[in-house]
Every structure is written in C-alpha cells, then in structure tokens.
C-alpha cells in the first residue's frame, strides 16, 4: 500500500488509520454492535450526559467525583507534610477533555495577546478610551498605548493596501447626507453614554460646513461596542463624575470636599442660588436602579444635582412630617403657618390657637453671696461621753432630750420646735416635779462645760452660777485628787435628796454589794461625809475595798437620782443587759423566775422550754450521718455575740460577774428547789391558785430583802442570787411569819446535825455560801423535820475546813486532792472525797468496802435473809481468801512506790482489825474510822 511505502511522507491524516491487513492473519470477529462504544483516551466510556450534567464524561466512570469518591484531593494528613493552603483554580474543576483541542480551555500553543493582530485596533482603542472616560480613573488607556508594540495585523495591512486609512470607516464611499442619517440612526450606544463633549460636534460642524454634492466621503469610522466587563458594584447605567466636566474647567486645582455637608465650597459649587453658572455636567443616577424601584424607563435618565438637597438640615420642607426628603407638594404649604412647623401636621379638627398661652415667668435664681459655700455645717456635736466621762446611758439620755438643751435659746418656731415643757404649758398641764432638764442631772461643771461649749458655738455669753463657779474652782484647784473630788461631787449630788423613787441598781447581780451600795447612798443622802468608808464591808480585803470604793463613787455619780420626769419618761429594762460579758450567747435565756413559777405550777412546756439555734460541727454531722443543718455557717455551737466590756473593773471580775450574770446559779437553784420546793408548794397551795398570784409570789420569794439599813421604801425588784440571804427570807415571806427569828434560831441546832448526812449540801455551801450557813439551813429544817441526831459540831467544823480545801480544788480542778491524801487509805480517801464533789454525788462505797472487808451479813438484801446464816461462814472464808489474794498481789508487785506500799499496809491493818472484831476496831487512823463509822450509821438509819 501506499501508506506502507510512503511512511516517511508527511501526510496530514485525520482519524485513526486502519490497521494493515495481513494475509495469513485469521479473520477477526467483527465487534458486535453493542460493544462499539465510544471511549476516551483513558478508556472511559463516553456518554452524553446532557449539558447540565457534565457533558461527556461526568465524574469517574459516570459516577461522581474521583476514584475515591468525594474525597477532596486537598486532604493531606501527614505529619511531615502538612496540607498547604490550596487555592482552587478553574482547572481543578475541569475534566481532561476540556484541556484538549476542542475543549473549553484548550491547551494548545496559540498566539499570545501581544502578538496577535488585534493590536492597533483603532476602533477598539477608541471604544476603550470612551469606556475609560466612564471608568473611575479617566484616561487609563494612555499607558497602554505607550507600551503597545508597533505591529500591524494582517487585516490592517490588507486594508491599507486597499486604500483604507486609519480613522476612516470601512465600506464604500458615501455621500454626506445619507451617511449622516445613517450614523444618526445607526449609532446606538449601549452601556455608557458618550460624553457630551468631544470632537464629534466640531467635526459634525465641520462636515456640515464643507459638504459639496459630488464628493463622496469615506464612511465614518464607527465605534464598536465596547465589551469590556463592568467593574465595580455600581448599578447599570452608572456614571461616575467626570471631574473635568463637573467642575466646568474652573477650580480644578481645588480640592473638592464632597463629604462636608455644609462646606461653603460645596454650596458655592452646587448651590442653586449662589451659582448662576450652567449646571455642571454631573450626570448619572447615584446608585443606578434598584430591583425594587419601579421607574425602569428612567434607567438612563440623567439626574441633576438640583434635585438633591445640597445642604443638610438647611431648609426644612414644610411640615416636619416627612423629613427633609419630603415631596414637593408639602413644601408648597409651608407658608400657611410657620408655627406648625414646630408642631407637625395638625390633626383634623384641631386648629392652632390664636393666642399663644402666656409663657411662664421664670424668675432668675437669687444671686448667691460671694462668700457662700455649698457645704452644710452641722451644729457641733456635744461629745458628752468623752468630755465628762458620763455613762453612755446618760449620754444617750442627753442626746434624746436635746430639746431641753435648746430651751435656753428661745426659739418660738412651729410646734416642732417646742419642747415638752412648752407644750405642756400650751396644753395647760401641771408641771412635773423635779428638775425639768437633763442638765439638772449633770454635775455642775459638766453642765457648765456643756453650756460653754454651746455658747462658744452660738457666741452667746452665759454667766455661770456662783455655786458652779466654786465647784469649777475646786475642780481646778484639785485636779489630781479626783477620787476625793468625785466623792465630794457624789455627796453634793445625793445630799438631801429624799426620793422614794426607784434608783438604778448598778450591782443588781451581786445583792450584797448592792446592799452595801444602797447603804452608802443612804448615808450620802443624810450628808454623811465618810459614808463611803462606813458602808464598805470590813471583812473584805483592802484591795477589794478600794476597788469597791471607786466603783461606788463612780456609780453614785453616774446614777445620781433622776428626776421624776426623766424616770417617768424612761422605762427600765427588765433584765439588765450584761455589758460586762465578753461574749454572750446571742439568744438570751428568758426569765428564770417565770420558769420557776411555771415549774411550781407544773406547767412544763412552753414556759420552761427554750429553743436556740445551734450549729453542730460539720464533722459531727458527718459522723452522725446527718446533713449539716446550717450549711455554710462558720459558727460552731450556739452563736455568740461579742460585747464590749464597760470598764476595767468589769474586765477584772469577768468570771465572777459572768457567774453572777447567769440568772440561775445552778447549785443554788438546785439547793433551793431541793430543800424548799416541797414546803413552798404547800404554802402556795394554801394561799392561792391563780397564775398571777403564783407568779407574784414566786417573784416575791426570789426577791431580796435588802439590808436593815437600806430604805424600806425602795422596792427591790432584783431577783436574788445571794445564797446568804435568800432561803431564810424566802421561808419567812412565804410563811408570812415575821417573828420566826427565834424559831429558826432554835432550829439551827437541828439543822447543823442534818448537815452531815447530806453531803452535797456541804459542798454547795462550801463553794457558794461562806457567811450564813445557818440561815440557809434554817429552811432545811422546815423541810425535813425528823432526822437522826448526831453530834454535828465537829462535823460542821470539818465541813468548814473542807470548804477552803474545796475552793482550791475547784480552781485547780481537783488535781491535788490525791496528792493531799496519799497517806490515807483508799477506802477512807474515797469516803472523804465523796464530800468534795460537785452536784449529785456518788453513794459512799464505804458499805461495799466494809462489807467485803467485814462480811456481808449486815448489808444483805432482805429478800435473801434466809440465806444469811449459811452465807456468813462462807463469806468469812471468802474474805480470808480475798485477803490472801491481796497479799499475793502485793507480793507480785513488790516494786511499787513506797507510799503505795504504805497505803497497802494500812489497808491491811484495817482489814485485820475489821476481821478481828466486826463492830469496831483499833484506831489506826482514828478520824478516818470515825468518819466511816458515821457513814455506816447514817446509812443504816435510812
């Protein structure tokens, strides 16, 4: 074949050549029709999928995506090779066919733009130049022209050979007229308007001038349509301002501030009134035509600046309803009323008022004086507390009765300026007795100081009383001897005061002290000079006395007799607050007297119960498997309140006073109830049943009877805590027997004898009652009449001696008792110790000891009496055994302390002796044995 032979010949062939036939080749099977499919170069079937589904090869073998499906090819998950930022190009989304010759983006070698013949296309350039006019930067084609390669395309060359010249249109030569019409009709501009300026007009003019009949002209070169893409976001038909035209050639060098609303330049440029020049060629609508605007026909309408307000807020159109972009018709009506402009559109049915309302006459504020300072000056505070050392209570009273202090300067203002006395006069009431002012209650010099203080502020002068002057002088003369001075003052204050009023009881908690204080006050009233020394207790120590002296003097000055007006005005707190307590529980316990009364009526319940808030420890709650009842509270126990201490003395006696402060002195109250309750109950039942009566009697019982000397007119309201005074008085009063003194005296012996078989009583007495055992025991006598007689004298003495011992024990927490009694045998030690315990005691073990020492016969229970005889032998035997064991024990521990050994030996002695004779024994430690014996006897009598 030719093809075979001319292999090297350069034939341009299209399509695939047939394979050369070979003779000896067996006939191949023709490809069946269904297999004759079109495949691409990669062997993929080519199917037409339709234009919108990807054309010929869609996806991967007519599936989607790639071999991996939709897996994005950009995914790189290597540690070393991180995914780079991939910028997607259009090629990434093209198929391979698209790059082929007939694809949409053929990758064939083509003439690049600059070498293409399209250069120097005048018309295109012109069109581009025209477009450039509309562009944002006018004349940007200049640069392009400069660097354009000077190379003509073949078409241009051909045209030139045919006689065409640049600047002419292509086509047969034509006469002027038709050409002109042609151009008129033919030239249609799309997109951007040609600028109104240019050489066209002048050319036209020229053409019109020189238009001979027989001359043909080359057709006018027509500007091709510029297909340059529209940049920017402006709407269709938008023209930017051509500054050259807009400014009309003038002021081009000036910078135009477009964005300053009311700049003069702007108004001078655009203002319709000022500038008489032709309106600038600002053309084009600002933002084109929006989708929502109707005026589609106006797309190419030229807007003029005159339609816009050039001044912001300058002239309000008509009524203020429509804002400054209001339609024109409203601006027509603006002349009707100028005032409506302020009001707005007048509603129907309303008219403007003819007469404007009279304006409020506003008076100018007064002219401030030049020295005015806008700061309020409070009137100087009278610091009574600090200056004169007056008690806070008195200071409080002073403050609250400021009206009295202001009385001196007469202020006849409104009724609020009147003080109580003035009001009283107005009301026509009787004046109250006593000093009318708190000032009278003050010490003279204090008063004077207050007055002078006030006078200094008000620039008033006040002549002090001559008496005050002397006082002041004396105080000036003797400043160091304040104690004497105070005594003197106290004397002056209390002298001659005969009031049956309730006076304040500063030592209410300590009745004996209060009694002494009242004695002192009585003496003061009588004008006794050395009242203080006489009223003090001589049995006290010097230090105590001096302290009490100072306290009394101070108290007498602080709580000098109050006037009736004052005392009627203030009511006394029922329970004096404990200022001296360092820390008190927040919830005060109620009145014990009421409770006592309730208990006597057996009305347990509300009256006797009190509930406090109590904070258990968090851990305790946890241990008890209980949620914290007060979560988040840092308090543990009963919430405490800290209170200030009042004076140093209070601080010194803080423990004592605290004990006093607590209303029920436990042992005492116990004692009271233990011994007296039954008796009192009887009396009570006899006397009355009503609650009020009972309460009052209960109160009375707990009242103190003050000293003989203290004025009987003083109604004593303090409840007794004095162990010395109470019981006797109580019994007296409850019985109503005034002449029981003698009786109690004769009872005393009995009582003393009772003492011994009532060990806890000794204890309380030992602790709390030092002076008057007899009195307290007098009540006991009434409660218990029949008891065994004993020689109680020495017992009493012993108790007294123990009292001292006990006190030391209480303070040192009974640590030294054991050391005290190391020599004493254990048994006796216990019996002795019995007597020293607080509160309820343990029964004496003496029985037990004597029993297992001497046999159980004597203490056998009645139910087993029939076995006694049999047992006694046994027990004797056992006792011996026991003794032996003891001995063994002793042998086992031979290296005990010496004194212990002594103890043991003594014990043995007692054992031996008791074994020898069951009843009595050789006195080893006589007093011990005596005691033991007494114990036994007393128990046997029970």
């Amino acid at each position, binding site marked *: 074949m030719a093809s075979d032979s001319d292999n090297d010949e350069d034939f341009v062939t299209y399509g695939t050549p047939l394979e050369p036939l070979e003779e000896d080749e067996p006939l191949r099977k023709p490809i069946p029709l269904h297999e004759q499919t079109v495949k691409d170069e990669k062997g993929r079937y080519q199917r037409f999928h339709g234009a919108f589904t990807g054309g010929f090869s869609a996806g991967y073998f007519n599936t989607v995506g790639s071999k991996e499906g939709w897996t994005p090819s950009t995914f790189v998950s290597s540690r070393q090779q991180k995914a780079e930022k991939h910028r997607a190009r259009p090629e990434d989304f093209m198929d391979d066919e698209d790059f082929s010759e007939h694809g949409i983006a053929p990758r064939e070698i083509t003439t690049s733009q600059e070498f293409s013949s399209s250069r120097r296309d005048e018309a295109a350039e012109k069109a581009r130049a025209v477009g450039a006019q509309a562009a944002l930067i006018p004349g940007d084609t200049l640069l392009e022209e400069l660097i354009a390669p000077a190379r003509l395309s073949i078409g241009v060359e051909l045209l030139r050979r045919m006689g065409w010249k640049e600047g002419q249109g292509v086509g047969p030569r034509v006469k002027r007229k038709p050409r002109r019409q042609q151009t008129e009709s033919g030239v249609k501009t799309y997109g951007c308007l040609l600028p109104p300026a240019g050489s066209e007009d002048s050319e036209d003019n020229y053409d019109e001038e020189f238009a001979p009949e027989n001359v043909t002209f080359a057709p006018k070169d027509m500007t091709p349509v510029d297909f340059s893409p529209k940049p920017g976001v402006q709407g269709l038909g938008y023209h930017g301002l051509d500054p050259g035209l807009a400014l009309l050639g003038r002021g081009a060098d000036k910078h135009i501030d477009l964005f300053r609303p009311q700049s003069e330049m702007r108004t001078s440029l655009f203002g319709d009134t000022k500038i008489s020049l032709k309106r600038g060629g600002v053309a084009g609508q600002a933002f084109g035509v929006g989708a929502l605007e109707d005026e589609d026909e106006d797309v190419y309408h030229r807007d003029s600046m005159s339609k816009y307000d050039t001044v912001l807020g300058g002239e309000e159109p008509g009524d203020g309803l429509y804002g400054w972009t209001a339609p024109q018709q409203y601006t027509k009506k603006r002349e009707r009323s100028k005032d409506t402009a302020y009001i707005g559109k007048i509603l129907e049915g309303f008219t403007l008022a003819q007469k404007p309302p009279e304006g409020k006459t506003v008076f100018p504020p007064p002219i401030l004086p030049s020295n005015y300072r806008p700061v309020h000056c409070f009137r100087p505070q009278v610091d009574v507390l600090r200056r004169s050392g007056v008690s806070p209570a008195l200071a409080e009273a002073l403050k609250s009765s400021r009206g009295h202090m202001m009385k001196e300067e007469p202020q006849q203002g409104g009724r609020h300026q009147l003080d109580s006395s003035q009001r009283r006069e107005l009301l026509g009431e009787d004046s109250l007795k006593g000093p009318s002012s708190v000032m009278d209650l003050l010490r003279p010099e204090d008063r004077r100081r207050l007055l002078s203080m006030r006078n200094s502020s008000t620039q008033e002068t006040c002549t002090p009383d001559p008496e005050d002057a002397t006082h002041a002088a004396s105080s000036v003369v003797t400043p160091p001897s304040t104690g004497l001075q105070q005594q003197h003052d106290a004397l002056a204050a209390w002298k001659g005061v005969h009031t049956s009023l309730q006076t304040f009881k500063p030592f209410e908690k300590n009745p004996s002290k209060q009694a002494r204080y009242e004695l002192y006050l009585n003496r003061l009233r009588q004008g006794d000079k050395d009242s203080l020394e006489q009223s003090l207790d001589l049995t006290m120590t010097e230090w105590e006395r001096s302290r009490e002296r100072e306290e009394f003097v101070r108290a007498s000055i602080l709580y000098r007799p109050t006037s009736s007006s004052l005392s009627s005005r203030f009511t006394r707190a029922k329970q004096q607050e404990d200022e001296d307590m360092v820390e008190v529980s927040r919830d005060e316990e109620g009145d014990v007297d009421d*409770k006592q009364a309730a208990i006597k009526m057996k009305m347990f*319940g509300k009256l006797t119960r009190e509930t406090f808030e109590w904070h258990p420890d968090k851990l305790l709650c946890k241990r008890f498997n209980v949620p914290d009842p007060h979560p988040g509270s840092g308090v543990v126990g009963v919430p405490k309140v800290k209170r200030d201490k009042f004076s140093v003395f209070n601080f010194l006696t803080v423990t004592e006073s605290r004990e006093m402060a607590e209303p029920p002195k436990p042992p005492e109250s116990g004692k009271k109830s233990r011994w007296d309750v039954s008796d009192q109950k009887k009396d009570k039942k006899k006397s009355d049943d009503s609650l009020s009566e009972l309460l009052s009697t209960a109160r009375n019982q707990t009242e103190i009877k003050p000293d003989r000397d203290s004025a009987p007119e003083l109604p004593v309201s303090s409840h007794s805590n004095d162990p010395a005074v109470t019981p006797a008085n109580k019994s007296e009063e409850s019985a109503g027997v005034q002449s029981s003194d003698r009786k109690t005296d004769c009872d005393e012996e009995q009582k003393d004898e009772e003492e011994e078989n009532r060990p806890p009583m000794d204890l309380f007495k030992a602790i709390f009652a030092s002076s008057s055992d007899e009195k307290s025991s007098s009540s006991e006598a009434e409660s218990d009449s029949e008891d065994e007689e004993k020689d109680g004298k020495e017992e009493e003495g012993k108790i007294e001696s123990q009292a001292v011992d006990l006190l030391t024990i209480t303070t040192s927490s009974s640590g030294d008792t*054991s050391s005290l009694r190391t020599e004493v045998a254990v048994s006796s030690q216990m019996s002795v110790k019995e007597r020293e315990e607080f509160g309820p005691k343990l029964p004496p073990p003496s*029985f037990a000891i004597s029993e297992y020492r001497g046999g159980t016969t004597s203490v056998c229970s009645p139910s087993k009496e029939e076995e006694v005889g049999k047992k006694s032998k046994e027990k004797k035997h056992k006792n011996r055994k026991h003794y032996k064991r003891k001995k063994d024990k002793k042998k086992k521990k031979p290296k005990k302390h010496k004194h212990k050994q002594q103890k043991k030996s003594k014990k043995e002695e007692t054992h031996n002796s008791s074994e020898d004779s069951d009843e009595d024994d050789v006195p080893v430690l006589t007093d011990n044995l005596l005691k033991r014996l007494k114990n036994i006897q007393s128990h046997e009598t*029970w």
Partner: protein
Amino acid sequence: MAFPQPKPQAPQLPQHLLRTIDCKQGAVRAVRFNADGNYVLSCGSDKSLKLWSVNRGTFLKTYSGHGYEVLDADGSYDNSQLCSCSSDKTVILWDVATGQVTRKLRGHAGKVNCVQFNEEATVILSGSIDGRVRCWDTRSRKFEPIQILDEARDSISSIKVAQHELLTGSVDGRVRRYDLRMGQLHVDFISSPITCVCFSQDGQCTLSSSLDSSVRLFDKSTGEMLGEYTGHKMKGYKLDCCLSSKDTHVLSCSEDGHVYCWDLVEGSLSLKLPVGKGVVQSLSFHPTETCLLTAMEGRVQVWGTEPEEEKDDAMT
C-alpha cells in the same frame, strides 16, 4: 377459748432476783448492759472496768487503765469497743477482745460523769463536771474533740444519744437536747439538778430524774410534762433512772435501797424492789427483755421476771 381475756396480761416486771454478782472492785459506780444485753459492764471505784456475762454471772475480763474510779461505761453496737470515763478526767476507748486501751482521751477539766457512744460508735460523747460535753472522734487519730458543747452552766450528770439527738442533763437544772438534724438546742428548765436523763425507746419522750426526788417524763417535741413519778428518795446522790424495754414502766434508783418502778401511763407505783440497805447507785434495763441490773455498793444484782431454778451463787 373463744372468749378474749378479760384483762390484757400485765407487763412483766423484774421482781425476782436471779443472781448477785460481787464485783470485787470497790463500789460499783455504774452497771450497764451491752448493746444486745448479753453482757454487763461494771464500773468500779477501784479504777477497773469489768465485763460479765449476764446469764451465767461469770467474770470475763477486767479493763484496767484508768487512774481513778470509773464512773460510766458504754459498749459499742458491735461489741467490739467499750468506752469508759473516770474521775481521772479521761475517757478511754477499749478494745473488747484484747483489753487494751485503744485511745485515751484527755481534755476534760474535771471528772467525767457520763459517756456514751453514738449509734455507729463513731463518736464518743462524754459529759464532765466541768460542764462540757466533748464529742470525740473514734475514727481519727486526733486527740482533740470534734466539738465541745459548753452550754451547760454546771456539771453534766448524764448524757444519752439517740440517732441524731443528744440529751444532756446538767446540775444547773436543765435538760438540753441537741438536735443535729435541725441544728437546734432545746433547753428544758426543771430547776432541780438533773441526775439522769433517758430517751424513751420510741424516741418521743425524755425521762429525767432530778434531785427533788421526782422523775419526770417529758414530751420531747414540746417539753410538756407527761408524767411525774415520785415516792422514791433522790436528794443527794447521782442515781440512775430508766425506762423498761417496752416503755411500760419507769424505773429509778432510790437512796432508800429500793428500786422504784412506776407504771408509765398511770404514774402509780407498781413495784418497789428491795435491793439492799444502801443506796441503789445504778441500774440498767435490758434492751429487749425484762431484765434489770442494779448496782448497790460492791454488788450487781440481776433481776428477772421468773425466779430461776438453780440459784447458783455468782460469787465463785
């Protein structure tokens, strides 16, 4: 019989002496049943605490370690631990089996009158003559108490624990009930020094005996008195009182050598048990059965409803 009994059977009272145990430890200050009532703890004035079997009256163990007379003791719910308090101001936690001191808790300023485990034996509560109740943690190794209840103004004479409540009786004449769940402290004023307080078995009532020779039953929630039981003598000594296991009777020691047993509802004296000539110091009622322990002087006596056949002497 088809007829119902005309009278419900009267509750049994422990009126027969089953045995007497001579403890040989001086005066027995307190006698206590353990949690299940099979064992007895006796606190002796010779510093020893002794463990006994109730049924046989046999001596089991002595726990010695106190420096002074033992005043009270309690056993834990699982019988593994004991606690005791003493005049030597200490509280001791014992291991029952070995008899060793697990912990010796010091802190009270005076002799410790009463001691009590809580329900799970995680806390020991001890009341002392110094007026404080100390809550000791048995779990931690710290020797400081968890909390100190110092509201009492005088010696604490008795303390009881029931679930989440502590009941303390004090010589200042007040019964205080600390409610841990509510975070409240209820103070009932009784005016006479309290010697012993008890919860009833149902936990709704409290019993308190005071030195005015009366035992009073109070409603726990309101503090109202439900009953007053008198007739015995309790004027000077710290003696115990208790309720029977079925809350049918109130029992109290007396200084006249008897145990008084009142009917709880009627308040009438139903039994006056003669124990001896001395003071009946302590008593303890069996937690479930009708069995009573009394302590007088050096002996502990066990009382039951039925007289036991073979009266073997316990003093072997």
